[in-house]
């Protein structure tokens, strides 16, 4: 049977070039960059080269790159690290309602500690309105954290406009660019951000590779205290193979940014067209244009996501869903809820993320399978039967 992965956001194979670059650091060049002798030299140089490549991907000074083991860790370092450093006085934090849990759940904890949190609503496409941010800012606001793009529905936020409002009031601005980096042009200067989260594994780098960009002059407390690695901002022996792979992936991503995003946008649009042309009652989630090139997000009306996902898997097609049944917490996606999507459409949502093995030849098969599965599940859906009755009585 065919295997078609449409869930590359959950995980992607490592680029062979990236893995090749990593291998020697497992076996031969296994030294410790902090060593007082030369076994640490090659790893240290490789680490600094990786730092350069990562910095280049976001137009930053490499001194501002702090390696972490994940985007979640980078988000925690950004938010808790900044708040603990307590440079700016106040107790109010602003984020968007569609942030990743690694931002949102911290804010919940901080609320319990007495901080006040405003979660900005989003429009039906998932975008934050700068006016809402402007209204939310108070003289107590000490941090604004708004993602660069949403990993689920792909919508890109107007970070430049948002950060300008924060900058006006001298409020540090963090953006979680985990879903965006490697897929769109990013420049910390143009974006006007003070802190930016990166995830290497979101652009074909290894798992266990994340980073936080920290603008010069922004003070953080470390989350992981101990040795003085990463200028004291993150203790622990450096994971050189992961860092080297991260750097190489950043280099490849930068060199292929335009080509990759064009290719994926075209493929994604072709898939969208095909699906919408042949399957009735589909609903596009996220912004129609202003979205990540590799992301497509649709709701299949009248049916539930896990059932879709299981049927698609039986056909060799792998997707993810924002339905409550597919989440381990048994809650439907907070992102889809924030869009104002009806519960039924949230349950029937499918997130399709393209990746290295995606190809146009598979589109007819995907379309055919999803079409059949949607028909089959609708045929047994009480919501669909109700809809048909209403249609009939309206006719």
């Amino acid at each position: 049977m065919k295997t078609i992965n449409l869930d590359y956001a959950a995980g992607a194979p490592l680029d062979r070039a990236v893995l090749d670059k990593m291998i020697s650091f497992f076996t031969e060049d296994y030294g410790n960059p902090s060593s007082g002798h030369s076994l640490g030299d090659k790893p240290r140089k490789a680490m600094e080269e990786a730092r350069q490549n990562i910095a280049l991907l976001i137009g930053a000074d490499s001194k501002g790159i702090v390696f972490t083991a994940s985007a979640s860790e980078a988000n925690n370092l950004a938010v808790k690290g900044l708040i603990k450093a307590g440079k700016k006085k106040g107790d109010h934090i602003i984020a968007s309602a569609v942030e990743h849990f690694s931002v949102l759940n911290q804010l919940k904890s901080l609320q319990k500690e007495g901080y006040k949190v405003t979660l900005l609503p989003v429009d039906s496409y998932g975008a934050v309105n700068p006016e809402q941010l402007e209204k939310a800012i108070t003289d107590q606001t000490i941090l604004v954290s708004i993602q660069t793009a949403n990993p689920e529905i792909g919508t890109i936020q107007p970070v430049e406009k948002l950060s300008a409002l924060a900058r006006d009031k001298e409020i540090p601005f963090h953006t979680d660019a985990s879903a965006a980096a490697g897929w769109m042009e990013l420049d910390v200067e143009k974006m006007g951000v003070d802190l930016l989260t990166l995830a290497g594994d979101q652009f074909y780098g290894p798992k266990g590779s994340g980073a936080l960009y920290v603008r010069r002059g922004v003070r953080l407390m470390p989350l992981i205290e101990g040795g003085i690695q990463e200028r004291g901002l993150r203790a622990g022996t450096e994971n050189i193979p992961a860092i080297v792979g991260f750097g190489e992936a950043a280099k490849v991503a930068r060199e292929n940014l335009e080509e990759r995003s064009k290719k994926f946008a075209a493929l994604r649009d072709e898939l969208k067209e095909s699906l919408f042309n042949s399957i009735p009652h589909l609903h596009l989630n996220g912004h129609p244009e202003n979205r990540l090139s590799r992301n497509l997000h649709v709701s299949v009306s009248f049916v539930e996501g896990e059932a879709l996902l299981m049927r698609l898997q039986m056909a060799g097609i792998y997707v993810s869903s924002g339905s409550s049944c597919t989440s381990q917490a048994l809650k439907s996606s907070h992102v889809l809820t924030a869009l104002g999507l009806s519960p039924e459409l949230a349950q029937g949502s499918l997130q399709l993320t393209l990746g290295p093995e995606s190809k146009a030849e598979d589109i007819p098969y995907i379309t055919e399978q999803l079409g059949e599965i949607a028909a089959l599940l609708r045929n047994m859906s009480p919501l669909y039967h109700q809809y048909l009755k209403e249609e009939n009585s309206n006719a």
Partner: protein
Amino acid sequence: MPEYSEKVMDHFSKPRNIGEVSDPSGVGEVGNPVCGDMMKFTIKVKDDRIEDVKYLTFGCGAAIAVSSMVSEMAKGKTLEEAKKISNKQVAEELGGLPGNKMHCSNLGADALHKAIEDYEEKQKVSAG
């Protein structure tokens, strides 16, 4: 994917008794899209026996398998027997359900019982 038993996968991929019986003796509906699962059971009763039973289900793999299993278990049973079909029994017949899917097994038996109640209510009305 949740670790579903073979039996669950069998009922999910080949669900039995889909649809609505025409001119149903009783109708039972449970759930709503918010919680992710919805079931509508329709039954045809003859001589206090469930002659036919069908369902429509909006829901996850477990919900679909449960509906299918309940319909099979109910068919041909007397109303009294069918009323005794418990959530636990349904889960057992399906070879077990993952922990976070147990609630689905409740839905199936509940919907069936509601359909029976509905029938019995109607009987009372027509008798009364």
